[in-house]
């Protein structure tokens, strides 16, 4: 359970993040070319981005006055396991990078092995036994059955091999 003080700190952080998002989109809205109409393509993005900044200021004022509402279980990041969060996000990034470098099939193997590690599986045999069928099934489903574009890896093009696997 977190304290009120901790929640105030978190709320300041949240307000800052939202303000940053709002300011970022205000700058982005300025890049939109204005048309001749009274209400052009910039109006709505600008109005929403400004509202985000106002909302962030409201949150910050609320935190300043200590009116952050009820402190509930699972609120905040005190119980968060940063190591595991980083591992999961890392697995995702690893999947994206290996997809780009080696193609879908290899990315699934690498991503799945990394994800199993993140979830605490350490048996090499179990990892190998589960990763290969997993890659095959997903490749068959998405590239074989759904016939999605299977882009070539920038480093290695394994498509001649993986296409044979799914019978293309």
């Amino acid at each position, binding site marked *: 359970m977190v304290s009120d003080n901790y929640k105030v700190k978190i709320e300041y952080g949240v307000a800052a993040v939202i303000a940053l998002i709002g300011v970022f989109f205000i700058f*982005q809205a300025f890049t939109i070319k204005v048309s001749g109409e009274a209400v052009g393509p910039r109006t709505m993005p600008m109005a929403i981005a400004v509202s985000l900044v106002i909302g962030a200021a409201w949150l910050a004022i609320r935190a300043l006055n200590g009116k952050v509402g009820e402190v509930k279980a699972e609120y905040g990041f005190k*119980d968060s396991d940063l190591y595991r969060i980083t591992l999961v996000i890392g697995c995702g990034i690893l999947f994206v990078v290996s997809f780009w470098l080696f193609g879908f099939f290899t990315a699934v193997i690498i991503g*799945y092995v990394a994800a199993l590690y993140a979830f605490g599986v350490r048996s090499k045999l179990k990892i190998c036994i589960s990763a290969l069928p997993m890659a095959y099934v997903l490749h068959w489903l998405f590239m074989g059955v*759904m016939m999605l*574009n299977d882009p070539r890896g920038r480093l290695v093009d394994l498509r001649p091999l993986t296409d044979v696997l799914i019978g293309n």
Partner: protein
Amino acid sequence: MMFFADILGGFQTFFADPFAIWFVMLAAFVGIVFGALPGLTAAAAIAMMLPILIVYNDVIGGLSGLAFLYVVGKSGRYGGSIAAILFNTPGTAASAATMQDGYPMTQSGRAGKALKTATVASVFGDYFGEIILIFGAVSIASFTKQFGPPENFAIYLMAFVVIGSVVSDSIIKGVLSTLFGAVVALIGEDTITGQFKMTMGIDELESGMALVPLLIGVFVISEVIIQAEKVVKMKMVDLDSSKLDDPTAHYFTWPEFKRCVPLMFRSSIYGSLIGMMPGLGSSVACFVAYGEEKRKAKNKDQWGTGVVEGIAAPESANNAVSGPSMIPLLTLGIPGSTIAAVLIGMFLVNGLQVGPQIFATEPPLFIGGNMMSPREFIFAIFAGGLIGIAFYGIIGYFGAPLVGRAIALLPTEYLYPFIFMISLAASYSSRASIADVGFAILFGVIGYGMRRTNFSAAAFIIAFVLTTSMETAFRQAMIISDSGLLIFFKFEYMDKFSYAPIFLMIGAAVVIFRAISTMRARKAKTS
């Protein structure tokens, strides 16, 4: 009489589709399993399956795909009760109240009775809600079809404000969640001028942010992160009740059913009313029904120790939300829930714009390989919903303990990496873009942050889906307006009556009411 003819026609259309019945059956099962898996919801199931259904829409027919998603939403709500009763962990937020009496019943060896009570109450509530939907939506749609751009914009704005103010514990956080969804939705090509907006120089964003990676990010990947933190195995209490003296420990008996009927009826009314309000979902309905029925009960001291009424009330209420939550979608084009928001995309894939025109009898459209009017199509989906309820009722009544046992045996350390990989692949499949996988991961982290700080992922998604239409309605209204923004506050435009000020007043009233009730609750707590 026309309703009955429409419903019969709906069943006829439904049974004429060779895939529809199978997909509804599959949806009943898939929804139960996903709902029963703690942390995973029907929305997560839909997010992962949506790309597959879109790709195969022409093969399986639009009706099968839409009926599948619709029924997954229903059975997913019910499935949550299995985890609540057996594992003391609500499978979905909608079944949080069910835990209070469900788990004590399991601990006392009456899990079978608890599960069967939940099934019967869910089916009762769902049928009640479905009837409200069928009769309510058609009547309201005949009134709302006369609306023009000013009313449409006012409705969208009202929906934003109402959803934002009721969806979260904090009004400001709910509103900020909708604003964030709105600003993300505005990235991409402008609908009127065609210029690219706020793309940050990323080519993939020129066609805007896709719904599927967003859904997967905030609902699935954020959950995978949370599960990675926990890495705990679910423990199920032994279901063996053979040692108990009570021969009815496995059954929801006829006297119990008769005792619960008035309660289920009242709870279904609460659920239906809450369901009609955009943003207020099953999680609110279940607690309102539980609280109200406990207050009225003669045996209120026993509530929380394992009474069937404590399961019947929240379960009939949370499932009664399902049908009426479609009313704002079908009559105003406003999704009342995340599932309804996803359905908009599936309707569009089939060439149908959600809103009152969906009940039009003419012109016939080529939908999913058949020529039919939008009205016939929508009534076929209603028929699918009615059949889907029966399917999940049968599966749940006889198979819920089995589903529970299977889930307890699932090795979570393999299950969640598997779900993670499927979700990454599904993100790619929506537009065959590796960038979309990156966006899904990014929104997974954002979704995790939102959950940890009480922001609403549902409001974010609903706003994302609505914003483009809202912007278009706003600009169209401004084009026809000769008094600028005042068009939204006047009761007349282009020589016809305008309802726009009424909608804006309703939105303002809801916010004021919510703010006052929050302040009162805070004061009561401090005093």
